[in-house]
């Protein structure tokens, strides 16, 4: 039994119930054989429902009487070789030779973490003919660049990228490896973590270093952002985490920065892939994709039909943003699924999210709640979206949106 209540210590005070995010603790009357106790409260004891318990440990510090015992899964001796792992690595994501913005954001964060660990930041860069991007990586925070170039690595493929990354990790032993939580990163890094036998935390919104233990504190939302969890990887290295677009800030490029390039190459079999990439089809009509957009103009049921989305496109174009949509608009067939923001679509975190005719159901909210500024335009003053929008505009979007487009056009031209 990994978790238990020490019956003798428990007073049935119910503090643990309040701490439990999973509703897994109940106070039950325990029948004691003596039956002589006059104070009936002393019979009340906490009972953990193991089917609901996630062993998160939130109840342990909540209990003032130290009556909750959680057996930590510490192996007998901490692995002494953990100390051999040094440095922070960023997996550099490139598409058709171009480094993606999320990689620069991670380099910026890594520099901050590296100062707390007094260690170096390395970029791990796989591709083909990508040397023109090396300076940019160094200017944005890489102290070293591990460069692996081969025609087979020109575009991302799960197997060769996994093979190369696993070999580099085993050889150079980084203590931390960070990667974008993208369609490439999430696919690749999950395989790498299993192969290396280490922990991986998805979609971190906060990364920090424990000042005493010098380990990575990985904070992420769960249950659609309703709760946050801080996670560590105490006994395995590297400590691995993915981070979404726009969560971290890139550092201002510093052209005086110097870095070391370390070239690696491998036997041909390392680059082979059973699954073959046959073609890449770009569908993004505008120049900006949703994940990378600083500004998103999104439409919902209130748009009334597919033809009206051009109002949003015009506004997005003026602002240099992308067009999103709620599930209602996608399910009605007004706009392709690739634009859907929300639980069953994409999660976005732009600087400005303009929701037009979107009521703001929880499924939509979880996909955009990390946006810095949320603007709601809706004619229904009772729409839930006004409860969390930074600025609310109650009115007819068919008047407001074109007026906004016009006004921004005038203002931004100045």
């Amino acid at each position: 039994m990994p978790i238990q209540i020490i019956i003798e210590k428990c007073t049935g005070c119910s503090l643990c119930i309040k701490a439990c995010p999973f509703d897994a603790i109940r106070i039950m009357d325990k029948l004691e054989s003596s039956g002589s106790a006059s104070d009936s409260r002393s019979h009340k004891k906490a009972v953990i429902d193991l089917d609901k318990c996630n062993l998160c440990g939130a109840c342990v510090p909540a209990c003032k009487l130290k009556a909750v015992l959680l057996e930590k899964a510490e192996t007998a001796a901490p692995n002494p070789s953990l100390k051999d792992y040094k440095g922070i690595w960023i997996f550099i994501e490139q598409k058709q030779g171009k480094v993606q913005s999320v990689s620069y954001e991670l380099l910026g964060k890594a520099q901050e973490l590296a100062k707390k660990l007094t260690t170096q930041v390395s970029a791990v860069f796989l591709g083909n003919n990508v040397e023109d991007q090396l300076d940019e990586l160094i200017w944005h925070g890489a102290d070293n660049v591990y460069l692996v170039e081969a025609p087979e690595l020109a575009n991302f493929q799960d197997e060769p990228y996994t093979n190369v990354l696993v070999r580099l990790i085993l050889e150079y032993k980084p203590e931390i490896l960070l990667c974008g939580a993208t369609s490439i990163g999430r696919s690749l890094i999950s395989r790498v973590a299993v192969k290396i036998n280490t922990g991986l935390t998805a979609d971190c919104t906060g990364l920090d270093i424990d000042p005493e233990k010098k380990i990575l504190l990985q904070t992420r939302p769960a249950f659609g952002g309703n709760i946050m969890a801080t996670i560590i990887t105490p006994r395995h290295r590297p400590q691995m985490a993915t981070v979404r677009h726009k969560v971290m800030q890139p550092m201002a490029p510093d052209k005086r920065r110097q870095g070391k390039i370390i070239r690696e190459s491998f036997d041909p079999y390392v680059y082979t892939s059973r699954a073959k990439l046959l073609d890449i089809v770009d569908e993004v009509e505008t120049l900006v994709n949703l994940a990378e957009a600083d500004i998103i103009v999104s439409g919902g049921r209130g748009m009334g039909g597919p033809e009206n989305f051009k109002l949003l496109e015009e506004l997005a174009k003026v602002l240099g943003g992308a067009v999103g949509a709620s599930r209602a608009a996608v399910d009605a067939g007004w706009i392709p699924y690739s634009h859907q923001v929300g639980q069953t679509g994409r999660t976005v975190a732009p600087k400005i999210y303009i929701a037009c005719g979107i009521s703001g159901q929880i499924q939509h909210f979880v996909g955009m709640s990390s946006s810095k500024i949320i603007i709601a335009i809706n004619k229904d003053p009772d729409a839930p979206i006004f409860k969390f929008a930074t600025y609310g505009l109650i009115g007819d979007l068919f008047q407001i949106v074109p007026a906004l487009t016009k006004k921004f056009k005038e203002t931004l031209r100045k």
Partner: protein
Amino acid sequence: MNIIVCIKQVPETTQVQINPETNTLIRKGVKSIINPFDMYAIEEAVRLKEKFGGKTTVITMGPPQADAALREAISMGIDEGILLSDPAFAGSDTWATSYTLAGAIKKIGGFDLIICGKQASDGDTAQVGPGISMHLDIPQVTYVKKIEEIKGGSMRVERMTEEGFEIIETPLPALLTVVKEINEPRIPSLRGMMKARQAKIATWSQKELGLDSERIGLSGSPTQVIKIFTPPQRSGGQIIPGETQEVVDKLVELLKGEIN
């Protein structure tokens, strides 16, 4: 074509609310459902079986009540359900979960395809599918939005990316994780529901699976949750009052500094 679908039972998140006094999730009376993305995995497996024949099996790891999720999958046309349930599996992170599921898949054996939803709606990690394929050392394609063709022991699929999609051909056996666009899950038929009610669900514990006990459950999980807390709630901001032109002017003024 033999297909194994991996699913997860999750709370129906529309109903997840925070108790403002205790700052904890209110889970009382919250319905458990099949993870929405897994519904597309189930549907795709049933469609492939209808086209190519073979057998479909659904597996899940969870407490005894996850039996309901397996029965729902059977009501949609899946042939058989297996529940992986053991207190020893509790506290598994994505490493231990993918190891356990991969162990069950090896025990089932003889599969051509494994299908998972792209991620679960409660954890949102998208790590278990790729983890399984690595444990089994088979090729994977994630975020699949369309199966274009299956022939001669390989399949051609469309994989969704941020910019569009990729066309990938993979030999079988392989693992796919699927997105919403791939299909529309069916409503179970009356006959399906009857079948589901009568179906025998096998339960496999650690004893049946015989996995490495140091790689399952809490002790087999490299990651460890050390703190759970409620994030500061996003509070409602201001309503900008006035006529259309007035509110538009005010908003543009407020946002000007944010737009480069």
